[in-house]
């Protein structure tokens, strides 16, 4: 693993950003953006997750490329699961049957 020791400043910065994003996402939920409510909520969640993974979990600093491969392939497989399920659910009722 990385011997890299990250300055505490970075950690606090990330922490503050995460707190802000949490408050923002909760607040935005009360504003009517139509479809975009979901999109905004999920984008913020993804941003937060990224911050945690990259900095708190040191993925940004690690020189082990396999850690990244593990994360990326898990996400890829998750997308497979969701996307291919949607070929069914997205088309239910379309066409015959």
């Amino acid at each position, binding site marked *: 693993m990385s011997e890299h020791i990250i300055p505490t400043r970075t950690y606090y910065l990330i922490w503050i950003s995460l707190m802000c994003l949490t408050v923002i996402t909760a607040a935005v939920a009360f504003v009517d953006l139509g479809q975009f409510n979901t999109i905004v909520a999920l984008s913020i969640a993804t941003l937060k997750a990224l911050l945690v993974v990259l900095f708190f979990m040191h993925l940004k600093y690690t020189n082990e490329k*396999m850690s990244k491969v593990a994360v990326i*392939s*898990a996400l890829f*497989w998750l997308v*497979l*699961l969701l996307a*291919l*399920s949607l*070929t*069914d*659910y*997205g*088309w*239910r*009722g*379309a*066409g*015959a*049957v």
Partner: protein
Amino acid sequence: MSSVAITPEREHYLNKEYGISSWLLTTDHKRIALLYLVSITFFFFIGGFFALLIRLELLTPAGDLVQADTYNKLFTMHGQTMIFFFLIPSIPAVLGNFLVPMMIGAKDLAFPRINLLSWYLYIIAGIIYLHCILTGGVDVGWTFYTPLSSGFSNTKVIEAGVAVFINGFSSILTGLNFVVTIHRMRAPGMTWSRLPLFIWSHYATSIIMLLGTPVLAITLLLVVFERAFGLGIFDPTRGGDPLLFQHLFWFYSHPAVYIMILPSMGVISEVVPCFSRKRIFGYHFVALASIAIAVIGFLVWAHHMFVAGMSLYAALIFSLLSYLVAVPSAIKVFNWTATMYKGSISFSTPMLYAFGFIGLFTMGGLTGLFLAALGIDVHVTDTYFVIAHFHYIMVGGAVMGYLAGMHFWWPKISGRIYPEGWGRLAALIVFIGFNLTFFPQFVLGYVGMPRRYWQYSQEFQVLNVLSTAGSTVLAVGYLLPMVYFLWSMRYGKLADDNPWNATGLEWRTASPPPTYNFDETPVVTWEAYDYENMPLPQEVTLER
């Protein structure tokens, strides 16, 4: 197993320590492999026993031997035992456990204690499942389809579900151990393109175990919750979708069929070059085909649901993708065949099983193409055609591969030679019995006999009788190896370090190997299957 005959002069993994606790607390991957060997053999015979009862019941059209409920439990428990407690752990947990570190020149798996933990998880799961069998059993089919399993069956679904759930973690940990070991523990010089194909196929298998099994785990857990606490995720009376269960189940269980076949393919890729005395044809293609199968195998799951009420377009997509996964399998079959071209072929038992594997896997795989064709699947799904298809692959393919491997590495595992004549005879019996059992089922399926039928229509009887007859032959074929393996542990000829003159690293250490596999960490400077530079073995002498 501690009764294994010992050669007192040399210390190896079998005689290093004695006593029950030296086995139950061992972290030596080879001893754990033997623990697995004993346990999966046990479950194989349980599953086989159920299979024989199934076949006996089906001897006559009327449901006369057992009650309908009993029959339903029989095939459920047959399927679940065979799949979850025998075939999925079979090659990976026994041969893989024994060989993966040795083949890459490592002293052990990366996490020996986790390896032991995974055996214990398997045993806990096995005990729960046995308890389930003994106290009433479960009757929902190995597929656990909702809402039958979640709301209607009044058998021990929760117990079975929990057992499979725990067993899943055993499988995950095995896969995790393999991937880490293969990445981190290779001996100097053991580059990725020098890895034996057995390792490649276990790597591919582990990917599936890691990324597929958790989905099965959570799905079964949701079913358990649905039964136990009234959660309603798959419940149609609450607007839930029973097909969602099927999607999640097959997301694991289709790739799982490749968990069952890939390791066998790995064995065949070792055996065929060794007994042809040739480098494998198209090493890189065979290796990458394993990975391709593992990845593409995740894209085809809903071909089990063509008539389930899925959308038309999803059916089209999944049918198309199913054909893609067949291509790498084809590549493998052709490469094995090509490897034999201009070889120097001997007919030792492992090679006979390998022949059987290639032939029967091809037939099973080709009938998979029938099933993937939408128009045909509508007719033959849920009939004996499907039963025949998968037994061809799983019994004719995977189990034969397993037997090939057991015979091939038995000298390494036990330090003894099995009786070659008996070995060949058993291989022949298995082959004949197998085809007699399952070929008639293809016909039966197309004529229209549905599966999971306790009683059936008169006109299906002749074929069923043939099948039942075959299964008794098959039983003999499976009992034989069991007997002579046990026999050979005491009376077999002592094996050399490398009785087959094979090239793998595992053959460069003693038989049986010392506890840390190698006295000195080997340095690899040659390609896999370097048979050109390997002398021919002494012609195997028949048993005394």
